């Protein structure tokens, strides 16, 4: 087994350990909250009570915890939704909402990545000229402004003033029952735009920083000395090196968006994971909330590990773990 293999395994074990710790903490804290019976007729309430008893919701915490893991391992059962979708498995509730979130974020990445990287490259090439300072200033402003302010701006101008876009993302029934129909894509333009501004700015800044660093390296001098033009040297050498940290950062910021576009989903009423999270808190649907905790923790860890590992895969110079 090579060096990389050892490192990957070490990272994976650490990730599993972290995941386990966090899930345990969340589980204890969530189950310690008092459960409220849903509203309903007396017989319904009795039924739910009996069901809860059978599921072990009234047992001691540690016992509940053992049951929780047992259910996951044997039946892939993460609990049951009692408020959002009555008696539907929490896993199904979550996965049913994954697609809209992933789509909106993927579209915004498709918009943001090329623009952000190109702007970053341009700024780095024009370093310390007016173009660079202009781009840097705008990027600074765009990074600072919170994403929901963009959402309001997009809504105000493109919906309210110009009427080009709908206020909210269409419901599934209004868009030919498909998440990828043209109608649905059209209605998703507004949230995609709102998400993209910050993404573009972040990527542009990152690309500029990385590229300016690699442009001043010695190998660039060598490349010019051996007769490459500036454009050739930049595209063949500097850009290649600069891409090493940029690519993983794109991946992890995509995953970060899935975990963090809650407010955009709320504003444009996208029936995604973020709105599910808010609803599960408001309805005190604890099993779904727990499912959300597991999901977000997993996404966060995945982003971290992808960043770490891809450095190693993309750049042979980086010998991770070597001391």
């Amino acid at each position: 087994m090579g060096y990389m293999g050892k490192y990957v395994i070490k990272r994976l074990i650490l990730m599993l350990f972290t995941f386990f710790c966090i899930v345990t903490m969340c589980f204890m804290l969530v189950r310690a909250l008092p459960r409220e019976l849903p509203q309903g007729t007396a017989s319904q309430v009795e039924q739910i009570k009996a069901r809860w008893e059978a599921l072990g919701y009234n047992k001691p915490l540690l016992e509940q915890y053992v049951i929780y893991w047992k259910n996951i391992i044997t039946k892939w059962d993460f609990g049951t939704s009692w408020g959002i979708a009555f008696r539907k498995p929490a896993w199904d509730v979550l996965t049913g909402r994954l697609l809209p979130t992933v789509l909106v974020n993927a579209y915004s990445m498709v918009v943001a990545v090329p623009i952000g990287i190109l702007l970053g490259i341009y700024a780095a090439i024009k370093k310390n000229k007016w173009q660079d300072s202009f781009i840097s200033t705008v990027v600074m402003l765009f990074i600072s402004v919170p994403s929901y302010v963009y959402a309001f701006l997009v809504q105000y101008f493109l919906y309210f003033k110009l009427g080009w876009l709908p206020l909210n993302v269409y419901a599934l029934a209004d868009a030919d029952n498909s998440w990828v129909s043209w109608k649905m894509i059209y209605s998703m333009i507004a949230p995609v735009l709102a998400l993209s501004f910050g993404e573009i700015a972040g990527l542009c800044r990152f690309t500029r920083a990385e590229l300016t660093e690699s442009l001043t390296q010695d190998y660039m001098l060598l490349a010019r000395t051996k007769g490459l033009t500036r454009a050739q040297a930049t595209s063949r050498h500097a850009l290649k090196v600069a891409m090493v940290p940029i690519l993983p950062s794109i991946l992890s910021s995509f995953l970060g968006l899935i975990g963090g576009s809650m407010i955009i989903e709320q504003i444009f009423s996208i029936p995604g994971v973020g709105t599910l999270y808010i609803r599960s808190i408001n309805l005190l649907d604890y099993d779904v909330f727990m499912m959300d905790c597991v999901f977000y923790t997993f996404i966060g860890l995945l982003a971290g590990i992808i960043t770490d590992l891809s450095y190693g895969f993309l750049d042979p110079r980086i010998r991770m773990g070597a001391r």
Partner: protein
Amino acid sequence: MKHQIDLNAIPKEKLRFAQLDAKLSDTKFEDKPIGYFHDAWIRFRKNRASVAATVIIILIVLFAFVVPIFTRNHMGVMDTYYAKKGPRHTWLKETLGIADGGVTGSYSEMDFVRYAAIGVGAEDKDGSSVQSIKDTMGTLYQPLNELIKVEESVNKLSKKTTMRFTAEFDNYLQVGFIYKMVTQQEYQKILDYQNETGLQILYPLIENNEWNPDPTDANYWYKCDKKFNAVTVNEKGKATKLNYSDDLVLEDNYMRDENGEVKFWQYAGGGTFDTAHYKIRILYYNYYYYLHDFFPDYIFGTDAQGYDLALRMAQGIQLSLLVAVAVSAINMVIGAIYGAIEGYYGGAADLIMERVSDVLSYVPFIIVMTLFQMHLAAKVGPIVSLLLGYVSIGWIGMAYRVRTQFYRFKTQEYVLAAHTLGANDWRIIWKHIFPNAIGTIITSSALTIPGVINSESMLSYLGIVKLGTASTTSLGTLLADASSIWTSYPHLMIFPAMVLSLLMICFNLFGNGLRDAFNPSLRGVDD
């Protein structure tokens, strides 16, 4: 041709010692020595963007603390009639012509007449002289700021001509008159107040006859038909519709007694003299002054519930800054201590502590905040649980940075020298290594502030943290309150969002300036 001197031929007595009595030790610098912070300050001063950002931050902080002093009497005033109204300030309106409470809209003829008639009715205090709309233009109570244009359109089927009015009305005066049930004493109090100050509050009641289309609406003081069109009635009781023109004079429809005097009150139930209730018709604008002792001068308008938006924003900024500064200070302390111990001792302690902070750093922020709110909000209040939530995981970044600094410096020779001279661990940590980390600590503390402001307003926007009470609110709560209605009342969104963005931008610029000042080698490296 130069005159040559033979140096050896100089007679001895002509030579003397130049520095015979002078002390040849080091002389003192004539300049003052520049310390670390002074040096940083000089560099910071040169960064114009950061200085401008600092000035704006100071202005916003001043706003947050000065506005509540000036609007002390707005505190706790929540008026449902004047909720969601736009910016209005009498002084600014008269001098600069801005903040006139005006909203431009398109009105049908009957609506336009109804609102413009408020101004006419308000000028006619005792039902004796109805003026034309044109004559009341520019008077204090005329809500019509400007009639922008009148369009006529002919319906193709019915061949009827309809008129559309585009006009700007003062939103506050547009409320006009309301009916109110008051006790007999209250009526007397209003009457005394009115006589004393000359502020007309009570206006004649409206006759409840066929020319009064809506007996619950106190603004139809002129004769209207059932379709709410202004009419004139001749002696035979035949009504003719009045069309709007510049000099339109409406016919009043006040309740009068046998002598033709208008009535200001009507018995509305209640047995004895003390408990009797009167129905009165009041001009809300003046009644508001009677109630609160100030006219509705709201420079940013009023929020969704009817509070002064400027005051609410000031309270929101106060809360945001308080939370942000507190979090950044607490995190600084915890992170510095944790990082120092980790970095200095290394080995097993470092391994365990690093594992702990590693696990904690992967707990999703939003889940931590939610769990803290769910468990503690009822016991210690939302603000304290918000702080605890931030503090529970916020120190990790700081600890990491301090740890790195410690790893860098702990093996240097001067630390070894201090060890050899017998300095204990405590002294080496705080006296010798820690000062190297101060620049990093200050910079990242300053950069924590915008992050906290942003996430705090996000949490309160999402409703995970519920901060809105009569005396406290947050910018996020204001935005959340506005989120469903802001397309009709843009000021509810624009002002808080603007202040929030401005705060974020300025704090980021300020933090970047600090970083460049403390660590000039990092200039231009954005991370």
